[in-house]
């Protein structure tokens, strides 16, 4: 565990998630049935049975999440430590990039269309099946790692030693894929986002013995 760690404050949450897809459209109404009157038995007879309702539309796609922000830079620091007792370790590096936003959830499949109208003498038709769920949106690109800084340490004496380590801010993870929408069949999940491309710039630690 370093005695001193200089780093950019980490992000507490991923970037903003993408928007959810819109719901699918309602399926077409089935064709209307037709009948004719049969005078010999005084009954209506079905000529054309009503059609079933059409399949609902596929849900809309979720949109992509927002890209992650660059990691916060390491702070600059000056340590005047005077007389140092023991081994003191210092680690300096930029903060990690923000995780990309999750893709939006795909839209729900549209409801099936209503059956065609059923005249006297015909049997009723069925409503159409619900549409398929929309595809989830893609996760977004993670942010680049935060930049480094310079920390200068002045001391008068030390009984142990200084141990120093510089790190680079790590690129943020790619955003999670958006979930496929629900429907008669679930929409495909979105693609995961790519991790950030670039680590942060290097840091420097200067240790100077003062009188």
């Amino acid at each position, binding site marked *: 565990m370093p*005695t001193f*760690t200089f780093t950019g404050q980490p992000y507490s949450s991923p970037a903003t998630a993408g928007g959810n897809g819109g719901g699918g459209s309602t399926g077409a109404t089935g064709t209307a049935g037709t009948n004719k009157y049969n005078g010999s038995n005084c009954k209506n007879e079905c000529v054309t049975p009503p059609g079933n309702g059409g399949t609902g539309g596929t849900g809309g796609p979720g949109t992509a999440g927002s890209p992650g922000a660059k990691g916060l830079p390491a702070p600059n620091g000056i340590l005047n430590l005077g007389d140092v007792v023991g081994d003191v370790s210092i680690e300096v590096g930029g903060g990690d990039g923000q995780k990309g936003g999750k893709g939006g959830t795909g839209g729900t499949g549209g409801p099936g269309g209503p059956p065609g109208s059923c005249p006297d003498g015909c049997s009723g038709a069925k409503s159409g099946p619900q549409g398929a769920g929309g595809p989830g949106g893609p996760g977004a690109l993670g942010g680049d790692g935060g930049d480094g800084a310079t920390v200068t340490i002045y001391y008068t004496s030390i009984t142990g030693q200084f141990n120093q380590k510089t790190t680079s801010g790590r690129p943020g993870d790619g955003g999670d894929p958006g979930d496929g929408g629900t429907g008669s069949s679930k929409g495909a999940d979105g693609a995961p986002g790519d991790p950030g491309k670039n680590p942060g710039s290097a840091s420097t630690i200067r240790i100077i013995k003062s009188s």
Partner: protein
Amino acid sequence: MSELNEQQMGRFNAVNARLGLAPAQSTHATNARVKDFVAKQHVVLSSNPAESDIPPYLIAVGSIAELNKLAGAPDDGDDTDVVYPPAASAHLTAKAEQPLTRAQLIGSLDDDTLADLKTAAAAYLKGNPAKVADYEPLINATLFPGKVAVFADSGDLNVPENGSVTIKGADPVVLNYGSITVGQNGQIIVQTDANITTQIMTQL
């Protein structure tokens, strides 16, 4: 925790004087939350009073030169590792003279120029201010006035075993403690620009 000798007490008082505090003055002295602060395993010292376990003593800072007096590095003549920006153009230095608000001025600068300004400000504090003098008016016009949060006490800042002190906030933080003692697996996490002075630093 060790008692400060006369020389160490003198150096503590000198830093206090630079911060505008009386000799041996503690910013904890009138603070009702100090008992809670001492008892906590994980402590936050922040320039934001709302998130700080002990409220900061805030000092208004009008310019980079004032900030350098409060929190700059001693002039040791060695600026080997200090990063300086390229020389500022006449066009850029003239911007500080324009009748713009701070927000308008910042909005008129591109990302590279803003990055150069921050580099220049950091170099002013850590290196030779004369080498970034052409940036000084623009630094003052874009980054100031500001404030610095001070935490000072001639006693010990104790980081307990497995505990932590996190230094954070939007404004720079200056610590001046007589001694700092860090227990095993304890750590001081610095997340904002900071100047930390102690006369005795002990890592157990």
